[in-house]
C-alpha cells in the first residue's frame, strides 16, 4: 500500500508541486469511488456483452417479421351452390376475427385480466416487472409471478419458448419494446386475440366462441366474454367443457378485474357472475353434412390448387356445386329404403365375427347426382353411414356395371345403322371360344327387336350385337362417352363385366341426356382466398364440353331407356317414365346392383352391393335393390319441380312397332328412328308365323 501511495503521490494528475498531500481518508474514499466506478464499468461491460450476446441490443424490425407479417391461419371453408357453408378444412381450428369485430366487452375483459396497462405501456409494465422482481428475490430466485404484458405474450407466442428464465425474459422485454415501436396496439391485440390457443383445439377468440358457445364472436355476451378472456392464461385448465368450475372461478376473477379497472361496477359484475353459462358441446361440421362430398372436394381442391401442400388452414373459400336439396333427397332415398337393404343383407353369405358367431355382410348403397347440362355434381352419398365407412363408393369403388353398360353398346349399334326394330333371334350364345353369358332360359327360342331385348335386358342379343360391331369399337365408344377406367377387351364387357366407377357412369348417362355432348364433371365452381381473390374458376361450359354423339342417336337411346321403365326391367318405376329414363344393371351373383337414369336436367346413378364383392342369393337385382332408391330420389325431385321432357331433335320419327317382330303394328309400342332408317314392313314373317301357325304349309290339307 505504501508503495502504491508513493506512486500516487507521484502521479502528476493527483500531486502538484507545492500542493498539500491528500489525507488518507480522502485517498481511501477516492480509492473506493474508483473501485466502484471500475466495478460498475466492468459490470456494465459485462451486461452489455451479455445483452449483446443475447441479441437484445441488436433487436430490429427483421427480428419481428414473423409477428409483423402474421396472417391468421384460417380454416378453408366449403360452400354449397347457394353459398351456405357445408364444410371446412383445418388442422388447427381458426376463425379470424378482425379487431373491429371483437366485442368491446371481450377486449376489456382480456385487458383487465391480462394487462391492465396495455393501452399505456410501451411493451413492458415496469410496475409489474418490479413486482415480479421482488417476488423473484423474495422467493430466492424462483419466478413465481408473471409480469408479461399482452405485447410480451405475443412476442413469446411467436418468437420465444415458454422457458421461464431471466434470459428469455430479457429477450421478451426487449422484443416487446421493439414490437410496440413497429406495431399499433390494436394490431397487437388483434393478433393476440386471434393467434393464441384457447383450448379444445381452437385458436383465437373467434374459434373459441364457436367451440364453447357455438356462436360467432359477435354474439358473445359480457359474461361469456369473461369466460373467454379467462382462457388465455391456462386454456386447458379453464376449458369450460372439461372444467366448468375452474372456468367459473376464472370468470369471477376476470369480472373482479373489470371492476378494479373501473370497466364495470361491482353490482354488474355480480350480476354477470350470476348469469347462467350455456356451453354448447362443439360438434364439428365435418362429417355431418355431405361428408363424402366434402372429402371429394378436399381431394379435388388439392388437385386444383397445386401450390398448396394442403388446403387446410389456408382460408380458402371453396364454392361447390352441391345442391343441398338434392343431397337431402339422395340421403333420404337411401335412408328410406334401408329396410330393403336390410332384407338384402339376409341374402348374403354370412361372415364369421370376432366372437365366433356369424354376421350378415353389410349391404352398402351409394348415389351420385349430376347436372345433365353442365356436369356439376349436385349430390353425392358415398355410403350408408360415413361414421362406419368413409369409403366413397361414388368415386372410388370400381364395380361391374352389369347391364347398365348396355346403353353404351346399343347407342353404338344405333350409331352404326342398326335400328330399334331390328329383329334378333334370342338363343344362348358362346363367344370367345367358351364364354357363355347367362340368360333366362324362358327367353330362348324367341325373337325380339333390339329395343325389346334392350328393355328386357337380354344378354344373348347384346353379345350378338357386340360380335357384329367389334368389342374394341365398343370400348372406344365407351371412352368417348366418358369411361376412363380400363376396359377389358372381351365380350363380357358388353354385359358390363369391366369395372367402372359411379361417377364415370354418371358422365356417360349425362352425355345421353345432354344430346350427345359430354361435359367434364365438376364439383367446384370457384375457389378464392379469404380476401376474395379467385384462385380457381370453373372453366366455361364450352371449354368443358365435347360433342361425342349426335343428338339423334342420344334421343334414340333415351327413348330406348324410357321403354325400360315403361315395359322392361324398370317397370316398377313406370310412373316416372313421363319425365325420366334409365337402365338397370346387375353383375354376376348380384354383387353389384345398379340403376342409372336421368331426366332432361339431372342424372342419378345408384349402386347397391357389398364392399367385399360378396354375391347375393335369391332374386336380388338392380331392379329390386337400386331402382327403389332411384325411384324415391326421382319422385322427390319431380315432385319439387317437374322437369321438361327431352328435346326432340330434328330428323327423328316415331312409329308404332311390334316389339317382338319389328313390323309396324297398331298394337305395338312407340319406337323412335332416324328419318332415313325407318322400318317399312307392315308385316313380319315371324309375326305371321306366330299368329297363323301355318307358313306355306300347303301340304297338310
Amino acid at each position, binding site marked *: 500500500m505504501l508503495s502504491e501511495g508513493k506512486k500516487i503521490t507521484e502521479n502528476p494528475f493527483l500531486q502538484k508541486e507545492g500542493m498539500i498531500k491528500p489525507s488518507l481518508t480522502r485517498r481511501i474514499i477516492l480509492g473506493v469511488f474508483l473501485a466502484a466506478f471500475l466495478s460498475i464499468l466492468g459490470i456494465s461491460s459485462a451486461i452489455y456483452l451479455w445483452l449483446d450476446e443475447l441479441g437484445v441490443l441488436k433487436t430490429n424490425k427483421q427480428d419481428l417479421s414473423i409477428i409483423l407479417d402474421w396472417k391468421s391461419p384460417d380454416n378453408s371453408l366449403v360452400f354449397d351452390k347457394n353459398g351456405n357453408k357445408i364444410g371446412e378444412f383445418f388442422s388447427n381450428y381458426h376463425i379470424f376475427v378482425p379487431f373491429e369485430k371483437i366485442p368491446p366487452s371481450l377486449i376489456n375483459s382480456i385487458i383487465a385480466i391480462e394487462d391492465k396497462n396495455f393501452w399505456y405501456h410501451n411493451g413492458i409494465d415496469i410496475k409489474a416487472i418490479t413486482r415480479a422482481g421482488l417476488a423473484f428475490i423474495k422467493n430466492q430466485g424462483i419466478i413465481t409471478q408473471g409480469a408479461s404484458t399482452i405485447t410480451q405474450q405475443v412476442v413469446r407466442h411467436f418468437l420465444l419458448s415458454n422457458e421461464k428464465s431471466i434470459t428469455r425474459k430479457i429477450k421478451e422485454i426487449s422484443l416487446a419494446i421493439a414490437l410496440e415501436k413497429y406495431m399499433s396496439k390494436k394490431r397487437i391485440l388483434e393478433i393476440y386475440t386471434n393467434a393464441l390457443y384457447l383450448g379444445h383445439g381452437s385458436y383465437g377468440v373467434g374459434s373459441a366462441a364457436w367451440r364453447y358457445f357455438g356462436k360467432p364472436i359477435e354474439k358473445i355476451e359480457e359474461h361469456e366474454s369473461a369466460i373467454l378472456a379467462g382462457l388465455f392464461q391456462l386454456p386447458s385448465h379453464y376449458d369450460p367443457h372439461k372444467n366448468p368450475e375452474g372456468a367459473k372461478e376464472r370468470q369471477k376473477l376476470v369480472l373482479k378485474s373489470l371492476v378494479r379497472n373501473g370497466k364495470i361496477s361491482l353490482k354488474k359484475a355480480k350480476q354477470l357472475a350470476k348469469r347462467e353459462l350455456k356451453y354448447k358441446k362443439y360438434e364439428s361440421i365435418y362429417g355431418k353434412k355431405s361428408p363424402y362430398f366434402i372429402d371429394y372436394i378436399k381431394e379435388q381442391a388439392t388437385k386444383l390448387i397445386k401450390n398448396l401442400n394442403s388446403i387446410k388452414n389456408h382460408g380458402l373459400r371453396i364454392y361447390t356445386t352441391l345442391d343441398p336439396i338434392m343431397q337431402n333427397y339422395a340421403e333420404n332415398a337411401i335412408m328410406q329404403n334401408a329396410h330393403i337393404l336390410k332384407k338384402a343383407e339376409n341374402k348374403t353369405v354370412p361372415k364369421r365375427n370376432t366372437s365366433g358367431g356369424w354376421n350378415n355382410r353389410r349391404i352398402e348403397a351409394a348415389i351420385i347426382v349430376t347436372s345433365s347440362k353442365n356436369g356439376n355434381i349436385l349430390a353425392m352419398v358415398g355410403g350408408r353411414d360415413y361414421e362406419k365407412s368413409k369409403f366413397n363408393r361414388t368415386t372410388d369403388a370400381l364395380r361391374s356395371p352389369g347391364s347398365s353398360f348396355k346403353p353404351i353398346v346399343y347407342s353404338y349399334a344405333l350409331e352404326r345403322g342398326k335400328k330399334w326394330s331390328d329383329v334378333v*333371334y334370342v338363343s344362348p350364345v*358362346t363367344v370367345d371360344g367358351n364364354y*357363355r353369358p347367362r340368360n333366362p332360359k324362358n327367353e330362348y*327360342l324367341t325373337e325380339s327387336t333390339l329395343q325389346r331385348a334392350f328393355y328386357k335386358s337380354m344378354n344373348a342379343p347384346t353379345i350378338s350385337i357386340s360380335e357384329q360391331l367389334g368389342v374394341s369399337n365398343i370400348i372406344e365408344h365407351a371412352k368417348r362417352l366418358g369411361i376412363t377406367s380400363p376396359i377389358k377387351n372381351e365380350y363380357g364387357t358388353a354385359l358390363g363385366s369391366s369395372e367402372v366407377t359411379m361417377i364415370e357412369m354418371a358422365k356417360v348417362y349425362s352425355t345421353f341426356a345432354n344430346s350427345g355432348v359430354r361435359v367434364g364433371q365438376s364439383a367446384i365452381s370457384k375457389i378464392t382466398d379469404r380476401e376474395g381473390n379467385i384462385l380457381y374458376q370453373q372453366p366455361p361450359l364450352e371449354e368443358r364440353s365435347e360433342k361425342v354423339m349426335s343428338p339423334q342417336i342420344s334421343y334414340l337411346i333415351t327413348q330406348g331407356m324410357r321403354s325400360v321403365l315403361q315395359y322392361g326391367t324398370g317397370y316398377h318405376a313406370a310412373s316416372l317414365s313421363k319425365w325420366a329414363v334409365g337402365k338397370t344393371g346387375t353383375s354376376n351373383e348380384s354383387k353389384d346392383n345398379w340403376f342409372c337414369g336421368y331426366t332432361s336436367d339431372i342424372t342419378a346413378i345408384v349402386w347397391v352391393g357389398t364392399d367385399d364383392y360378396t354375391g347375393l342369393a335369391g332374386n336380388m337385382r338392380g331392379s329390386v335393390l337400386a331402382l327403389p332408391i332411384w325411384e324415391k330420389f326421382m319422385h322427390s325431385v319431380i315432385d319439387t319441380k317437374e322437369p321438361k321432357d327431352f328435346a326432340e331433335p330434328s330428323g327423328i320419327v316415331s312409329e308404332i312397332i311390334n316389339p317382338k317382330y319389328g313390323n309396324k303394328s297398331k298394337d305395338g309400342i312407340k319406337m323412335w328412328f332416324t328419318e332415313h332408317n325407318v322400318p317399312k314392313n307392315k308385316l313380319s314373317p315371324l309375326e305371321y308365323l306366330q299368329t297363323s301357325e301355318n307358313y*306355306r304349309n300347303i301340304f297338310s290339307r
Partner: protein
Amino acid sequence: MKLFDSKIFSCTFIFIGTFSCLSCFALTDQNAEISNNIDNPIYSPKQVSKKIKKANRNKSEKISREHKKTLEKRRNPKLGITQPPKLDQKICNILIRKIVNPLKKLATYLPDPTYVSKSEFAKIVILTNTDCDKHKSKSTINLISQITNKHTEKIGVILPLKEDQRKISLSILTGLKAAENNIYNSSNNFTKYIIKDSTGSKHAILKSLAELILIDQVAIIIGGLNHSEGRALIPITNNFMIPTLVLNSSTELITNSNYAFQVFPLLELEAKKIITSLAQKNVKKVSIFRPSNGKSDTLINALEDNIQKTNIQITHNISYESGDFDSMERAVKIISGIDYVKRRNEYDEAFQKAKQEALDANQPFNAKTVILDPQMLADAVIIPDHFKNVRHFVNIFKYHRVNNFMLAGTHEWRSKALIEPWDDFLQGSFFVDFIGNYLQLPKEIVYKELKSPYFAPANKVGELDFALIGYQVGDIALRSLAYKTERRKDYIRVLTNLKSQNNFYTNEYVFNKHRSSNWPTYKFEINHGSLFLLKSSKTTIGLNLSAPSPRQTEIKKETTINKNDNNQTIKKSLPNKRALRWN
C-alpha cells in the same frame, strides 16, 4: 276328224272303265312304262317297238283271262244262267249300276229333285237292267253315253268359299281368273267357270257336285282342296267319267280314279331335289331333324325312300318339339357328338386342363367354360321346318361351337327372316321350293308391290302359292277346253297329252304317268345374305327324277289360239287319234 267313232275303242274304253280299277291301272302302268321308256333315251327305237308289242300282247292276254273267268261264272248252276250274256249286255248293266243309279241318288241333292225328270237325264233315270236285254243293250249304252258325255264347255269349281278356308279359295279363284284372262286376253270375270261352295259337310259337296253335273253339265271339275272333299268328290266324278283336276297333294286321292288329275306341288319332288342337291354337294352322311307335329312326315318318308337309291347315308332321324329349347338342343347335341357321358374322359381332361390354366393365370376358375368340342356325325342336316326354327337351330349349333354346317330345307324356309339379320352360318345351305322367281310368275297373280324375285310379304306368300296353283289348274282346264271335244270323257285324253306351256313344268307334258302334274322344284342356295335360285338340273344321280308322261308319241297337228276373236272362241285341234291309242 274321226277320233271316237271307233267301236273297238269305245268298247275297250268302257270295258276298262267298268271292270276293276286295278286292271285298268295295270294297263295304264304298262302304257306309262312304255311311254316312259320312249322318253327315256336309254332305249333304241327298235327296243321301244318291241316293248309296245309286248305290252299290247300282255293286254290282250289279260282281257282274255278276264273273259274266261266270266264264262266260268256263268256256268255256275247256282246263278241259273245258262246263256252267257254278251259283252254289250254286261257293259249296259254296269252302266246302269255305276251311272244310272248314282245319278238318281245324286239328283236328290239338287234343290229341285224333280229337275232330272224334266231334263234330258229323264231318259236315262228310267233305265233299268231290263233295258240291257239282248237287243236293247247297245242302244241303252249309246243313250247313257250320249247323255252323260254332254257338256257345256264350262269348268266347274268346287271350293270352300266360307269360313276359315275362304282366303285360300279366294287365292285359287284369283289364279283361275288370271288364267282365264291370260288365255282369253280379256278381263271378263269367270266366264268359263261355274263356282260352287263346298263349305260345311259332305252334303254341301254333293249338292254342288249335283248341280255341276246335272244342271250345269260342266266339262271339267276342279276341286278337292281338302282331303275330305277329294274323297267325296272323286268317286262320283269317276263314276260319271268326268275329268277332275284335284287341288291336293295327296296322290292317294287320284289313285282309284281314271278321271282325276292332280295339279299340285308334290313333297316327293322336293325330297328328290334335296337328295339330288346333297349328292351334288358330295354329302355322304345326312341327318334329319323331324318336327314332332308330323307335318313333314310325308317329306321325310320320301327322303328316306329316295335316299336309299343313293350312296348317302341317313345317320340320324331326330324328332324335336318345335319351340322347345331342350328338345331342339338335344337334336343338335346328338349330331354334334356332344355327349358328356360317352366323352366323359375327354371332358375330365379338358376340365383339369382349364382348371390348371386358371390357376396358372391366377384367375378364378369357371367350370362352365369347359365345353366339349363338337364332333359332327353328319355332313349336313335336313330341317323340314319353317325358317324361324331354322334360325334357332343355327343359334343352337353356334352355341355348341359348330360354326359351319350345311343345312337343307324346304319351301318353309323361304322368308326374308331366314337371312335377315344375316348369319354366316347359313352360308352354303340351301332349300328347295315349288315356286321359283316370284317376278316370273304370271303377272296377273303377282302383286304390284312385289319387287323381290325371292321374297313376298308373309301374308301374301300363302296367297301366291294358292294363286299359282289356281292359275295352273285354270290354265290346264281352259287349254283343255280349247280342244272342244263333243264328249266330256274325251278331255281325259286331252289332259293326258296336254303339253307344258312356257316351260313351267319339268316335263314336256303337264302330267306324268300317275296323272300328277310335273310341278317344278327349285333350289335356292344361300350365299352371303342373299338367295340364289339355281337352274333346274337334270342330274339324277341314279334316280329317275324326271316324270315322263305316259304317251308313246305326241303329234300336235295344229294349235291356234285366236286371241283377237271378239267371241273369245278358241279353235284348237285335238291330238292325233293314233297318238292317243294308248289304252
